[in-house]
Structure formats: C-alpha cells, structure tokens
C-alpha cells in the first residue's frame, strides 16, 4: 500500500512538474513535447484512479491528437520544419510586472480552490447507484458507454455537434489559404505506416465493438481511426482532392445526423426523445456508435489536415 502511495505521490508531482515545465520551456517544440508527455502521465494517473476509458481517450485525443495538431501548426509557423531556426519563434513573456501580478492572483485563487477542495466532503455518493439501477435497461453492459450513449446521450450528441462546428469553422478560416508545406514522413516511417495502418484499423474496429461491455467505444475508436487517417495523410497515402469534398462533408455530418434522427425517431407512443425502446436499445446504440465513429475519425483527420481539399491548379488561380 505504501509503495502505491509513494507511486501516486511521485506521479502527481511529475504531472504538476511537467505542467510547469510546459509553460517554462523556451522553445515551442520542447513545450509541445512536454505537453504531450504531460498528457500521457495524466492518463496514467487516471488509470490509477480506475478510469481506463478516460485514460484511453486522453492518450488518443487529449495528448495524441492535440499534440499532433500543435506540432503541425508549429511546422506551419516555422515554414515546414520543426527546428527553431527561421520562421516564428515563440517569444518568452515580456511584461514581468503584469505577469508577476497575474501569477500571484492565479496562485492565490488556486490555493483557495485547494482549501475548498480539502474542505469538501469525501465520497459523497454520486450517481453510481442510479446508474447501477438503470443498467439493465440501457442496452449495454459497460457503465461509461451507457452514460454516454443512453443516460446522457443528449450531451454526447451536442459533443459531436461541437466537432462538426469545429470542422466547419476550420474550413471557413482556411478557405483559400495557400498550400502549406505539409509535413511528410521519411521513407522509414512510410514503411512503418504501411504496416501500422491495417493493424490500427482493426484495433479501431475492435475498440468500437468492445465498448458495449468493456472500456473503449466510439470516441476511442474514432480517435484511433482518425490517427490512421492522419498517418495516411502524412505518408501521402491519402491525398485530399476536391472530388473528396462531398464525401468528406457527408462523413462529418453522418454521426450528428443519424444520432439526432434516432433521438427524434424513437419519440412517440409515450416515449420522449432519446428514449430507445429497450428491445432495440443495443442495436440503436451500436448504429449510433458506428456512425459517430466515422464522423469522429473523418473530423479529427480533417482538423489535422486543415483546409478543405483544393486542387493545386485551382489554388494558383485563387491567389
């Protein structure tokens, strides 16, 4: 027990230390790497707190995809390379006095929050009893999936809407942007990608399937498939072209559309929206999950790629 306690203390200290290091790193590349490692350690902490679903999502999306997005942007700012020479440098904070005051205020607020946290009652019963009671009618056996896709399905629908909004805004913002030197993988990694892609696709499908009874589910599966697409983009196996645009639009919206249609479609005959008939609950949830997985994977890849696919010749005339 004491070994575990020491491990927890060490891990928590490392998480906080990495968060501080992230902010203190002078070089932006080092900052992003520190942030990714921070995310990995945080996921490890969540695994210690018996939250494997969250840990998976954090590794895949929070640390993994956010990190990839940050690195891709840094490469853009530095004209295609990740080294610090040339392009924009990440300047250190300039105004010492203001920063000091702000830091002091933030520190005081954090201390107050810490005291309030310590003053909070320990182990107030949450909603686990309600969840346990309702599990038999949920259509799935994994509690987190039941909460995400049934009890609080409305939240999850809106979360997919947030993703849709993000990709719409990104396409809008980057419309007509000149072709950026997109990072590419070297030959060794190309070979690796050729091996890794099919494995990852299978892993994503497995995660989706297993989500009904064990940690995993649409978001983790979508993230893995999204990572596949990102790898495909990096290794130039996938070259977005204008012809892909309708397909991409369809993939972005299919999760939201099917989810919302099912939510409305089950209403009636004494049932409200989102109230799946118990007999069809499992089928409907799997259908929603599959569609949402497609949308998440396509959206995450598109967020990484940035602008809508544009033909190179069109590009020249646009400018």
């Amino acid at each position, binding site marked *: 027990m004491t070994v575990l*306690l020491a491990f*927890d203390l060490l891990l*928590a200290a490392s*998480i*906080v230390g990495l968060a501080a290091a*992230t*902010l203190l790193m002078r070089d*932006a590349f080092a900052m*992003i790497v520190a*942030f990714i490692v*921070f995310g990995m350690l*945080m996921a490890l902490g*969540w695994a210690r*707190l*018996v*939250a494997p*679903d*969250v840990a998976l*999502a954090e590794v895949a*999306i*929070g640390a993994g995809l*956010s990190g990839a*997005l940050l690195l891709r*942007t840094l490469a*853009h*700012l530095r004209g295609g390379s990740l080294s610090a020479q040339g392009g924009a440098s*990440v*300047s250190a*904070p*300039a105004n010492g006095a203001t920063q000091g005051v*702000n*830091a002091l*205020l*933030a520190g005081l607020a*954090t201390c107050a929050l*810490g005291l309030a*946290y310590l003053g909070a009652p*320990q*182990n107030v019963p*949450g*909603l*686990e009893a309600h*969840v346990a009671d309702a599990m038999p009618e949920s259509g799935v056996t994994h*509690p*987190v999936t039941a*909460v*995400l896709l049934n009890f*609080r399905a409305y939240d*999850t629908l809106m979360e997919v809407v*947030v993703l849709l*909004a*993000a990709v719409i805004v*990104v396409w809008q*913002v*980057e419309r007509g*942007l000149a072709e*950026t030197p997109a990072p590419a993988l070297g030959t060794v990694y190309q070979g690796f990608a050729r091996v890794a892609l099919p494995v990852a696709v299978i892993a994503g499908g497995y995660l989706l399937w297993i989500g009904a009874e064990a940690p995993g589910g649409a978001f983790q599966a979508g993230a893995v498939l999204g990572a596949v697409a990102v790898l495909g983009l990096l290794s130039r196996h996938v070259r977005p072209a204008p012809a892909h645009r309708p397909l991409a639009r369809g993939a972005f919206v299919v999760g939201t559309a099917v989810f919302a249609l099912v939510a409305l479609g089950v209403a009636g005959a004494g049932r409200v929206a989102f109230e799946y008939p118990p007999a069809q609950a499992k089928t409907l949830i799997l259908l929603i999950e599959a569609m949402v997985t497609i949308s*998440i994977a396509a959206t995450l890849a598109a*967020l990484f790629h*940035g602008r809508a696919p544009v033909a190179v010749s069109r590009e020249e005339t646009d400018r």
Partner: protein
Amino acid sequence: MTEATIYGLAGLAVFGLGLMGVLGAADRLRRLVALNLCAGGAAMVLVASSWRPPPAAPDPVPHALVITGIVVMVSATAVALALIRRLYSLETDTDA
C-alpha cells in the same frame, strides 16, 4: 490521504498553472497550451471526484463527462490553431 485527494489537488495545481500561463504568456501558441493545461486540470478534478475506496467501482458519470470534455477541447484547440495559422500567413504576407 486517498488517491482522490492526491490527484484532485494535483489537478487543481495544474489548473492554476494553466491559469498563470493564460494570463502571463504573450505567445499565442503558449496561451493555447496553457488553456489545454486548464482543461486537463479540470478533468483531473472530475476524475478524482469519481474515485471510490477500492472494492467499490468508481462513479461512471464523471468519466463520461471527461470524455466529452476531451473531445470538446480538441475541437476548440483545432479552431484556435486554424486561426493562428491563418493569422500568421496574413501577417507575414503584409509585413513582407
């Protein structure tokens, strides 16, 4: 001192560090990373609140909330990064 206390306090510390970063950093990218730290800290507090002493299983509701929060945060990050890239292109075009 339980796991929940340790990681909950660590989460608050991370949130506070992120807050300092948002308020203190001058660079766009760094402020965005600081916001991501805030999100991580808040998520950690939620996950810690779900923990129950061992034989009991943790409360699944905060887990679902955090997964939602992670997806929301990556969406917001992507939008902010698109703005940063576009701004950089426009600014370097006009400055040159």
